[in-house]
């Protein structure tokens, strides 16, 4: 299956280049270390704010990789090669984004679980948070990819990408962080939030590739 080949190729490239999975994980850890220093070490505050901060920092970590997603492909002809391959560009886009995500983002939920515990969450709540993050990360990567397909290489590209991606990432932020907070409070709504997080990601998996493909096609012309 040709899409599978693209997935594996991108995963390999993502794993090898630019620090691979270590780069987002290190950035993630750095921000999570910074946050308590900024907001104060009071256990109640950290516990209450923890899930939200961890989700927010996940978004930042995903955004960091945005420019690299399509930046070189446009200039070095890989994009044209993909377009000429006869495969629908949306499938190419999906395989590419998921490949890079799988290779570079897998440590994040693990680090998030540890961070959750460090922020005073009980292990189970931190686990639910990590699980919702695992559900949310593909969605966040697709949103970022779409923003990157639109704005990468433009003036102040990184900033524009973040500005575009932020409102679109709101549903995932809300559901994922709420899942963490609800499971902290023992609220049964936690599973509902987890479901919504998964649903949002699936929705994005289904539709974002078309938007990404449209944006890439516009660049190729």
């Amino acid at each position, binding site marked *: 299956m040709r899409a599978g080949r693209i997935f594996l190729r991108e995963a390999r490239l993502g794993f090898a280049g630019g620090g691979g999975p270590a780069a987002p994980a290190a950035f993630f850890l750095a921000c999570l270390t910074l946050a308590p220093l900024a907001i104060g070490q009071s256990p109640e505050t950290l516990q209450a704010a923890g899930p939200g901060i961890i989700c927010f920092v996940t978004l930042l970590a995903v955004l960091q990789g945005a420019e690299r997603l399509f930046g070189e492909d446009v200039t070095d002809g890989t994009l044209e090669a993909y377009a000429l391959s006869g495969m629908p560009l949306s499938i190419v886009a999906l395989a590419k984004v998921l490949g890079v995500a799988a290779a570079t983002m897998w440590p994040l939920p693990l680090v998030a679980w540890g961070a959750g515990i460090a922020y005073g969450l009980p292990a189970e709540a931190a686990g639910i948070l990590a699980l919702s993050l695992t559900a949310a990360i593909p969605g966040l990567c697709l949103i970022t990819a*779409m923003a990157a397909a*639109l*704005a990468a290489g*433009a*003036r*102040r*590209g990184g*900033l*524009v990408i973040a*500005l*575009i991606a*932020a*409102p*679109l990432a*709101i*549903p995932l932020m*809300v*559901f994922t962080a*709420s899942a963490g907070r*609800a499971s902290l409070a023992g609220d049964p*709504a936690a599973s509902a939030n987890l479901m*919504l997080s998964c649903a*949002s990601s699936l*929705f994005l998996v289904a*539709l974002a590739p078309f*938007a990404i493909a*449209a*944006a890439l096609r*516009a*660049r190729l012309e």
Partner: protein
Amino acid sequence: MISYLANPKRFEAFARIAIPVCGGLALLLIAAGLWFGLLDSPPDRYQGDTIRIMYVHVPAAWLGLGLYLAMAVASFVYFIWRHNLADVAATALAPVGAVFAAICLVTGAIWGKPTWTVWWVWDARLTSMLIQFLLFLGYIALRAAIEDERLAARSAAILAMVGLVNLPIVRFSVEWWDGLLHQGATVFRADGPAIHGSQLLPLMIMVFGFTFLAGWMVLYRMRSAIMSRKAGNLQRIREAKA
């Protein structure tokens, strides 16, 4: 009607009438609305005179959302049928929508302080309008960032359409988020417990007045943009010959 107006000559003929009509109606209606809203209506039973802020806040809110919808529709028309006029419309709409969204946020805060003691509250309505403002900013920023005009137009069109598709989901998620936090206790409602007849009249007049104002602004900007593009084309031809 869309393909009818997409013809530049027909749009020019349409605009020649529509622009002054919109402008005149806007002036009349807003003047009437101000009269009824500020001078000829009694203060509210609960909110006193501060209810009068509603007469600018609600029209701004309506425009903040409505202009975004218009921008997304124009973007769709441009994306599918490549009518340049649709792209001109979308570009014209964006900053106008952004300004009205900002006015909505600011007047909302000013209304909130005396009525609900805080300048800002993170509830579904206000947060949604803030997101709306960000969507406008993103569109404007993307267009400004991409140098090639055609690519900028097409990318921005895709962004506007994606924003439109996501809008119900974003609003749902914000309502969900608000529900979890506030359990419906302090509900920041734009019209209070119930809107009185003497308040409905100025409100409706102002909504229509502001809508015609926005129409005037957008059509006027479209005309300016067409002039600008024409000038740009002539310049390119002149420079190519030289």
